[in-house]
């Protein structure tokens, strides 16, 4: 499955300035692994050493928080959009 990954600006120095990356995989975790393989410095920003998401980095698949849909095991479909957002304050 081909997915578009959108990164926060603070991480784009690790992707040669790219804000969006085309990536592939069957699940969100696979997509993250694919990107981590191609951008080795970016990988540790997206998941911990055990391969799990950090508590302060949230992934949204088509605007849905993946913590409600199965985390990294969430299945992706062709054309999905995966957005990465660092945790932010309340209001």
């Amino acid at each position, binding site marked *: 499955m081909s997915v578009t990954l959108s990164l926060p600006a*603070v991480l784009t*120095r690790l992707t040669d300035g790219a804000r969006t990356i085309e990536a592939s995989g069957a699940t969100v975790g696979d997509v993250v692994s694919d990107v981590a393989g191609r951008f080795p410095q970016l990988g540790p*920003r997206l998941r911990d050493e055990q391969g799990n998401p950090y*508590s302060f980095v949230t992934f949204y698949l088509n605007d849905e*928080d993946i*913590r409600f849909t199965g985390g990294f095991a969430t299945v992706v479909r062709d054309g999905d959009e995966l957005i990465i*957002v660092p945790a*932010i*304050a309340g209001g």
Partner: protein
Amino acid sequence: MTAVAVSPRVRALPLRCRNCGAETDAAPVAICAECLGPLEPRYDAARRLPTREEIASRGPSLWRYREWLPLEGDPPYSPDTGFTPLVEVPRLAPLLGVARVWVKNDAVSHPSLSFKDRVVAAAINAAAAFGLDTVGCASTGNLANAVAAQAARAGLPAWIFIPDNLEYGKVVGTSVYAPNLVRIRGTYDDVNRLCAQVADRFGWGIVNVNLRSYYGEGSKTFAFEIAEQLGWRFPTAVVAPMAGGSLVSKLGKGFREFLSAGLVEGELPRLYGAQASGCAPIVRLVERGDGQLIPEIPDTIARSIAIGSPADGAYAAESIRQSGGWAASVSDAELVRGILLLAETAGIFTETAGGVTLASALELARQGHFRPNDEVVLCITGNGLKTVEALSGSLGEAPVLAPRLRDVADLVARTSPSSR
């Protein structure tokens, strides 16, 4: 991004990551480029700190604590925010089973009647330091009011994003200042995520997104004022509402800073957190004690604190447990009774979050968390006139009489002696 000349009068402090310790220059960036952890201002440990007398001689605003705020120089905006009343409420003490109870009353905060005025005062001056000519926020209502009011006074355009189901008072209390107000179909967590993308795209000063490092420090002044207004001492316990979780951890930070500055001696207060049962991820984290916050989809009338994925939830839970405190949640019916009880005992009309705070304090008392010699401060962070819908059906109808003395006399005779 549009930028104007950086204000020569004010400078923002450099930053350090709370997770990995990486240091960066001052910038409208709240996220560590190394690990994506939250950035916090770096204060010069060798800076000169004022004495009690110097602080007491300054004006009655949060800027009397300027050495603990993340700006140097002369902040140009919002000079009058802070220093709200600390009101003792003797009638609540027996209900909580403690010696004394006070309300720290940010329901009358200047200018927008909630504690969010404090954080916006810090953030809008950080925007000035960076030369940002547009500010904004993601908000459950109170922050929207505070940003809109303070941006209007500062003459800055504002872009404000709120969920589309907020109380009428919160919407009017924003739109009256003529910001660019946008209602988003979704929860606050949806709005928050959108604003992170907006801040990235447009480079505005979104106070609780890219200015968050500076914004959060304004919350500490709530703790500073409690200590000063108690006569330079700490209460034994503080109860605060929790939404994103920032206030309770910044209360702890504020108390610790006054202790280490030698301004106050004695034991730090125990911190207690309050949430509505329909959105209580931080309370449940405190109860579990495992450090892994589980997000929730909010379902409560306490919309101002309905944040299902609180960014500072883990820090809040850690602050609470380290202080020896605890957390409790209450139903919507209980929070309404809390609003009414505070009004009837303290003469203070608070919004839903304040009802949650008092009702949770009663629940904590019932669970045995307070001691007979405790001195408790309740943090009342918002005004009841903003959420009058919450009281629909809870208040009796006032009688309508003809303008005749006889009718009034009849009514007085029918009214129970204790109410006369």
